């Protein structure tokens, strides 16, 4: 006996198929069986009147800290947070302890995700062994085990010849190579954006050039190799210009932004609140404008969180000593509503496109749409629900979130993963 789930009367948004209309979605077992006006009865019916019914959201940049820092987050806790945030798939970054650098490591992530039974969890593998930027990691074995990309995230690959080799070698496997663009020579020991605020706060700064120099270099390497490349969390107006030029040249380059680089500036660091310490650092209002323009222009391919959980005890240190990172997975949809929908930069279909369809393409998985026959990953959103962000209600183990107390709009109602309701508000 098949199990049926019918979602009635929602505003169904499926950008991949050009759908944005009030209708119904029928799920049989773990597949989308039909989309349209469906009159026949089903075993289980969800009334989605006034709600958005979208492809399951996909966050291609999270840190679940397992293995190594399970006190900060685990795949189980992170997965619970993810489904509560509407994500049916996430991609873990490989900067765990030890880093993800062989097929056993990749399989470990997958096993933990199966046990957690919440969201689909993918992982990227490291580009280089121990993320040291010297010798290539076993990309082939990792790709065969299901790694959806490679990155040394947390660091950029400093040596240009190593990066060139990585891109060339990755061409065998058709998986994305993703870079945390930061030239350490320019970044030095910086802990926030280099600018007026770093000057008056007496903190070492990270110049925008640190990001732009490496992005520029990588674009030259992509020109040479024509291998798919993804720029992680771009944060500066200069990076936007580089991406614009690269896309004009039709290079196989994609990029992503985070909510904090669209909502917060380096002025937020003025009280030395370490919840604003993040890498790349919070930049200026001018950079926010450039990034928002880039989103409007279609230059940005994915909206991510860069969910980076840390213990309160670590964030209670001096600004210089505290770790980089913001944990915002559970409120990220409403943050993007605030940053992009409320100011009229994007409409809902365009937002869903950047949170489902295009991220799926970047990591090369057959997801991100409600096409008939596709896996039944569906998110139901109440676009009008208002709430106050409360870190104490987070399922994530970490509370290092600067948005605590913000009043926001847009709530996840239900998250359906492979036909199963894994989260209900």
């Amino acid at each position, binding site marked *: 006996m098949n199990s049926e789930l019918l979602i009635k009367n929602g505003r169904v948004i499926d950008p991949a198929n050009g759908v944005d209309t009030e209708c119904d979605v029928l799920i049989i077992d773990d597949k989308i069986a039909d989309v349209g006006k469906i009159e026949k009865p089903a075993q289980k019916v969800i009334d989605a009147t006034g709600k958005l019914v979208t492809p399951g959201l996909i966050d291609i940049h999270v840190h679940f800290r397992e293995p190594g820092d399970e006190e900060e987050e685990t795949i189980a806790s992170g997965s619970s947070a993810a489904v509560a945030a509407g994500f049916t798939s996430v991609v873990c970054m490989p900067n765990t302890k030890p880093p993800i650098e062989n097929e056993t490591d990749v399989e470990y992530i997958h096993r933990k995700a199966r046990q957690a039974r919440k969201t689909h969890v993918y992982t990227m593998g490291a580009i280089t062994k121990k993320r040291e930027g010297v010798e290539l990691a076993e990309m082939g074995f990792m790709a065969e085990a299901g790694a959806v990309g490679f990155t040394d995230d947390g660091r950029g690959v400093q040596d240009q010849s190593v990066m060139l080799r990585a891109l060339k070698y990755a061409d065998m496997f058709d998986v994305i190579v993703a870079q945390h663009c930061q030239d350490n020579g320019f970044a*030095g*020991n910086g802990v926030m954006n*280099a*600018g*007026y605020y*770093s*000057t*008056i*706060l*007496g*903190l070492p*700064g990270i*110049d925008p050039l640190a990001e732009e120099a490496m992005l520029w270099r990588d674009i030259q390497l992509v020109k040479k190799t024509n291998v798919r490349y993804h720029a992680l969390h771009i944060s500066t107006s200069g990076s936007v210009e580089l991406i614009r030029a690269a896309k004009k040249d039709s290079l196989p380059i994609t990029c992503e932004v985070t909510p904090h680089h669209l909502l917060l500036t380096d002025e937020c660091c003025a*009280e*030395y609140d370490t919840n604003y310490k993040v890498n790349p650092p919070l930049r200026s209002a001018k950079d926010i404008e450039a990034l928002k323009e880039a989103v409007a222009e279609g230059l940005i391919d994915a909206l991510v969180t860069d969910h980076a959980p840390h213990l309160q*005890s670590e964030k*209670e*240190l*001096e*600004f*210089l*000593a505290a770790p980089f990172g913001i944990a915002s997975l559970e409120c990220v949809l409403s943050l993007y509503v605030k940053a992009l929908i409320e100011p009229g930069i994007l409409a809902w279909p365009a937002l869903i496109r950047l949170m489902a369809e295009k991220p799926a393409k970047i990591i090369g998985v057959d997801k991100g749409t409600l096409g008939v026959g596709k896996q039944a990953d569906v998110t139901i959103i109440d676009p009008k629900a208002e709430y106050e962000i409360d870190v104490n209600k987070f399922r994530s183990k970490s509370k290092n979130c600067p948005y605590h107390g913000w009043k926001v709009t847009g709530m996840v109602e239900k998250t359906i993963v492979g036909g199963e309701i894994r989260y209900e508000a």
Partner: protein
Amino acid sequence: MAIKRKSKQLKWRRKHLLGLRELNAEEITYILDTAKGFELISTRSVKKAPPLRGKVVVNLFFEDSTRTRNSFALAANRLSADVIEFTKKTSAVSKGETLLDTARNLEAMGIDIIVIRHSAGGAPKLLSRNINACVINAGDGFCEHPTQGLLDVYTIRKIKGTLDGLKIAIVGDIAHSRVARSDMWAMTKLGAEVIFVGPPTLMPTQVRRLPVSVSYSLDEVIEKVDVINMLRIQFERLGGNPFPSVREYSHYFGLTVERMKRAKPDILVMHPGPINRGLEMESEVADGRNSVILEQVTNGLAVRMAVLFLVNQAAAQGD
């Protein structure tokens, strides 16, 4: 007690002194006026007054210091406080007990005022947010060194009468100098015009957004200024190689006898110490008739007494 009360009293309400950026001119002047009263105590045969009797001041120093630490200890002693010295030579990023835990432990012993020096900008603010004791910043990273800024303006005001309208050059490694920042806030708030002088590689990011002008030429500036504050080249903080050699640095930015010949005859020569003789300035200048370097040290004591007195008073009023 030897504190002159003005008829129009400003009510001092701050139980912490974290920096001079957050103070207004009136508050800065109030500290200076309070310090003036305390200066007299040091000239008496019994160099002690009772206002901090029964209070405990801890000198929590995570960086080397002789002058500032001793000055605070002596200031607290003269106000009859008990002083605990807590010196810990660890970097901010090293493992072990966190700053907050250290401070909470001290607080559990019943201390009233923490005087902190730390290599991380913002460390005093972190403490002030998390503990009940008063916090006085004795230098945090390259953010601020408020009592140094105060003693600098105190010294200038004492000799020149006012800072209003004075031209003041601050010369050297501005980028890594907490003294330059505290001086800038205090001096400009009191009406002086501040010129930062040094090589571009030692200027902070977006220096032009600060309320100062910038010059790369000491020779151009030397003739115009009423006060010149020569910063110490802090070799321990310099990253990389911001100037090619000590020889070349001294050539452009050293205060030499030759350069002093073109200065105003009543120019005040200041230095926060310790001096690298022959590097920032020649010995003849450091010890010359325009030098007020030792007066700065003397005045530092009165200023620190005033600050200890005021934060303690504010804390008592808050209770």
